[in-house]
């Protein structure tokens, strides 16, 4: 035992082992690094990225009813709403501004909104040269909706991400994920 240990010490055995591990991970087919700007990374649906204001397809305007709940819940106080009336006398948000640099992307505004008028998109790559670029006003937020939630995607977001909590969250149901054993996993 002692002899073995001495030989190992002289031969730098533990360092050789480490070197071997490093070498065995060297070939390019073992690489795990993503070459980011060349290989873009797409976030999963439900990622909490840049804001968007939902456009109501029927009216073409924002869905927001200017209730102010999102501004009330926002932990970083970065939503500013000025309410007004449209020509029918209904309450609307005349101005809706999100200071994205202050936002902490908690999605509490999404959760608080009773009508599902504000959403967070998967887009996370935005940069600008001045602070002004990051005050998103109503028009830009509505544009975000058109850009990032085309077609059915908006409806999908509402059904799958915004819906929490729903009535199912308060009770057990059969669709819930439970562990079925490892065998099933191997078959997939």
């Amino acid at each position, binding site marked *: 035992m002692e002899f073995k240990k001495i030989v190992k*010490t002289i031969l730098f055995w*533990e*360092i050789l*082992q*480490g070197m071997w*591990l*490093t070498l065995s991970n060297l070939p390019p087919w073992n690489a*795990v690094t993503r070459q980011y700007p060349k290989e873009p990374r797409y*976030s*999963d649906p*439900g*990622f*909490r990225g840049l804001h968007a204001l939902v456009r109501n397809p029927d009216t073409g305007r924002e869905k927001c009813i200017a*209730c102010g*709940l999102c501004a*009330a*819940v*926002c*932990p*970083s106080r970065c939503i500013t709403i000025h309410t007004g009336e449209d020509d029918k006398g209904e309450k609307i948000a005349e101005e809706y501004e999100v200071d994205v640099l202050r936002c*902490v*992307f*908690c*999605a*509490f505004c999404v*959760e*608080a909104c*009773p*009508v*599902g008028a504000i959403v*967070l998109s998967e887009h996370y790559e935005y940069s600008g040269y001045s602070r002004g670029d990051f005050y998103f006003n109503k028009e830009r937020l509505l544009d975000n909706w058109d850009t990032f939630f085309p077609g059915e995607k908006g409806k999908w977001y509402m059904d799958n*991400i*915004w*819906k*929490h*909590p*729903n*009535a199912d*969250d*308060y*009770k*057990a*149901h*059969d669709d*819930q*994920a*439970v*562990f079925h054993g*490892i065998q099933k*996993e191997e078959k997939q």
Partner: protein
Amino acid sequence: MGKIEEYTVKRDADRTDLKLNMGPQHPATHGVLRLELDLDGEIIRKCTPHIGYLHRGTEKLGEDRTYISALPLTDRLDYIASMNNNIGYCVAVEKLFGIEAPERAKYIRTMCAELGRISSHLLWLATHALDIGAMTVFLYAFRERAMIMEMFEKLTGARLTVSYPRIGGVRNDVTQEFIDRAHAFADEFPTHMEEYETLIDQNRIWLKRTKGIGIITADEAINWGLSGPMIRGSGIAYDIRKHEPYDAYKDVEFEVPIGTEGDVYDRYRVRMIELRQSALIIKQCVEKLPRGAILDPNAPKFTLPPKERVMTDMESLIHQFVLITKGPMTAQEGEVYVATELPKGEFGYYFVSDGSGKPYRMRLRAPSFVHASVLPLMCEGGLIADVIANIGTLDIVLGECDR
């Protein structure tokens, strides 16, 4: 001599000591910690930690926000284990309101907390080894950490600042894919652990840099109020998950590893064993995960009403408005302290409630703050090169230390 040098390196006329400011922008101080070192050659005569560069007034901010919207503040305390912070906050608020999360939510939380613990310990291992000079471990540990980040991203929508648990449960249910992935991850994690250990466990440079360095005896550890791996490395099996179990910790089996010498190497071993234990806890949680509610059905006064009812049912709509603008108003007057086991140590939430929807006082007991105070004990009389090993072994996060 330039002006800056004059300022940072200054000689006292009648002493041979050299005053050296280490940090706050030193990469090995893990954030913005500043150490004022009095050096006699390479020997540290005096070490004074200075903190507060990352102070954001989280405790005061918490007083201005309702119990619901203060949750994201806790993400930013120990930002590399934000899931654990969130869970601790929710457990504390639940205790204040006298409610309890349903079984399924408890299991999900425990599972996520252990994933967060693994991610935090991996970051610790990576940076600690990097500081001491073992660069390779960094790359391996970050590979596994990225897996956890991706799992969190799928589940919560954010990689780092998750804001996932809610008062009385969790935000959304786990998917089949998530629990399968978590189980597979926990299953294969020990093989990755072997890789890290191949790289450093017996490496003579690593042993030289860590064995017998920064010794804290058991008595000292108690007297300084250490917790988490810091106190366990000194041989005291103090783990809040075992002593005051919250969530599902009383239903899972795990060991609490302890060290014998109380040096840097022992704390490294303790954390390595903890990583393995965390993987075991994740596996148990996945296997035992029951069907059931993920939000407390008996506590509709704390959780937002179901979305499909908000615009159809007047009562729900009013409830939604009151809850968000005023906060949950049913707290008892009084105070509550809940300690949770974070990867760093005992993190305590202390609330004083005046019965309104906002805490009258929110006080956070941060383990990093306590641990930073033990630095002089570890460093004084030692070599300057060991300061790096000592900071690494504390595993402090300044976001939580300064709050």
